[in-house]
């Protein structure tokens, strides 16, 4: 009996939940962004398992729920690698697995500076039905999402995405700016996009007692992202843009929750996106795997 991609996705999701209950989890200090990246990488040897959802409204069609799993591993203190599984359900249409992504972020400078650059390289193998809106690029607009899943899934996209992440932390504030260039490996032009973000913990000093609701556990901010067209038609024409307040709650019980209502800024954008996410970091995952294969660590 053939196994559908969605069944595989569901199994992977359940497996990752099981992983999340393993001992060795570490309380994380995670940024609240959904789209923008700051310069902080995963701690070396740690694996973070993350689940994110995006509910989106759709003018002229049915709304959708897109979701993705992230497996983020700190390969070294200067290199983080991530594997993504994407899926979506369009209301009144169907549910389908939409592709995989493999992302790498490399810290360029060995010390902290006022501006900290990080290089980002991602390979995406996805279908045209992908709706996770993890970035704004090129001329991606709301009406692209009107194609029924059965049609959209026939389109296969192999894409390389490059980002330059420039991030600063000053007096508790994180300010970040990401510039994006993406190239479909078929004969398509380079596409461009951006994301900017600002965030700050609600309190800078830590409490002397353990607490879940202490202000330092909450990080709030805002992010804005969108496309800049492509090589032939660079600019804001026929592009979509979003503004989204973001908040993260880093629990001492080793979980992080994120929430972000997003608002389209022009007629080409979805009017409203509601994103939420939950993640758990597994400390020492690299050591566990090493021991499994006879390593000493």
């Amino acid at each position, binding site marked *: 009996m053939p196994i559908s991609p969605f069944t595989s996705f569901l199994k992977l999701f359940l497996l990752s939940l099981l992983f999340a209950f393993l001992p060795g989890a570490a309380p994380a200090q995670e940024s609240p962004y959904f789209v923008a990246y700051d310069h902080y990488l995963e701690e*070396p040897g740690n694996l973070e398992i993350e689940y994110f959802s995006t509910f989106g409204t759709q003018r002229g069609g049915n709304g959708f729920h897109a979701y993705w799993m992230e497996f983020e591993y700190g390969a070294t203190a200067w290199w983080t690698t991530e594997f993504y599984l994407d899926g979506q359900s369009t209301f009144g249409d169907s549910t389908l697995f939409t592709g995989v992504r493999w992302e790498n972020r490399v810290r360029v400078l060995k010390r902290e500076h006022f501006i900290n650059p990080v290089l980002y390289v991602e390979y995406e193998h996805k279908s045209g039905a992908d709706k996770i809106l993890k970035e704004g690029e090129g001329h991606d607009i709301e009406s692209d999402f009107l194609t029924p899943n059965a049609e959209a899934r026939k389109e296969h996209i192999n894409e390389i995405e490059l980002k330059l992440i420039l991030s600063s932390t000053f007096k508790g504030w994180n300010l970040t700016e990401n510039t994006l260039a993406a190239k479909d490996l078929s004969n398509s032009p380079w596409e461009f996009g951006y994301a900017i973000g600002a965030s700050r913990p609600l309190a800078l*000093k830590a409490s002397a007692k353990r607490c879940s609701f202490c202000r330092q556990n909450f990080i709030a901010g805002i992010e804005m992202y969108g496309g800049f067209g492509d090589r032939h038609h660079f600019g804001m024409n026929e592009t979509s843009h979003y503004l989204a307040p973001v908040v993260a709650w880093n629990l001492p019980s080793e979980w992080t929750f994120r929430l972000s209502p997003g608002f389209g800024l022009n007629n080409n954008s979805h009017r409203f996106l509601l994103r939420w996410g939950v993640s758990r970091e597994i400390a020492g995952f*690299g050591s566990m795997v090493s021991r499994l294969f006879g390593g000493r660590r």
Partner: protein
Amino acid sequence: MRAYFASLAATAGLLSASLALAQRDKVALVYAQLAKAPQKARARHNPLEKDPDAVPAGRILFEQHCSECHGDLAKGGNKGPSLRVEQVQNAKPGAIFWILTNGVVWRGMPVWSILPEPQRWQLVSYIKSLGMAKSTPVSAPSTRSPSNVATEPPSPRR
């Protein structure tokens, strides 16, 4: 489907390579980084030195973010060296703060500027309060303030 397997195989290969990289012994080199703290950074004064909450708050932060590598008692763990040695305990608070801020990225310690400055100073207060471990030979007097000395080692978090 082939692309999926290729991506998985590449990730597994990178995982193995990174594990090998992470296994190198970096202890001495990590301590040596303390001496590289610029004079200006070393001269910085801990603004929370007299804050009675700094050590207990720093202890919680340490257990959350540092004990995984440096061990629950900061005596050294799987990946991070002991912080209860004279190189660390005799270091200026500003030098420890500088290491926390900048990490020793090429040697495996991440930057911790993601923690706001007051939290990094709370960590410095806690680390300095620990003093040298008994098994560590003492060749120089500790610079820790008696009021900040933790009389009991911290209990393990889990």
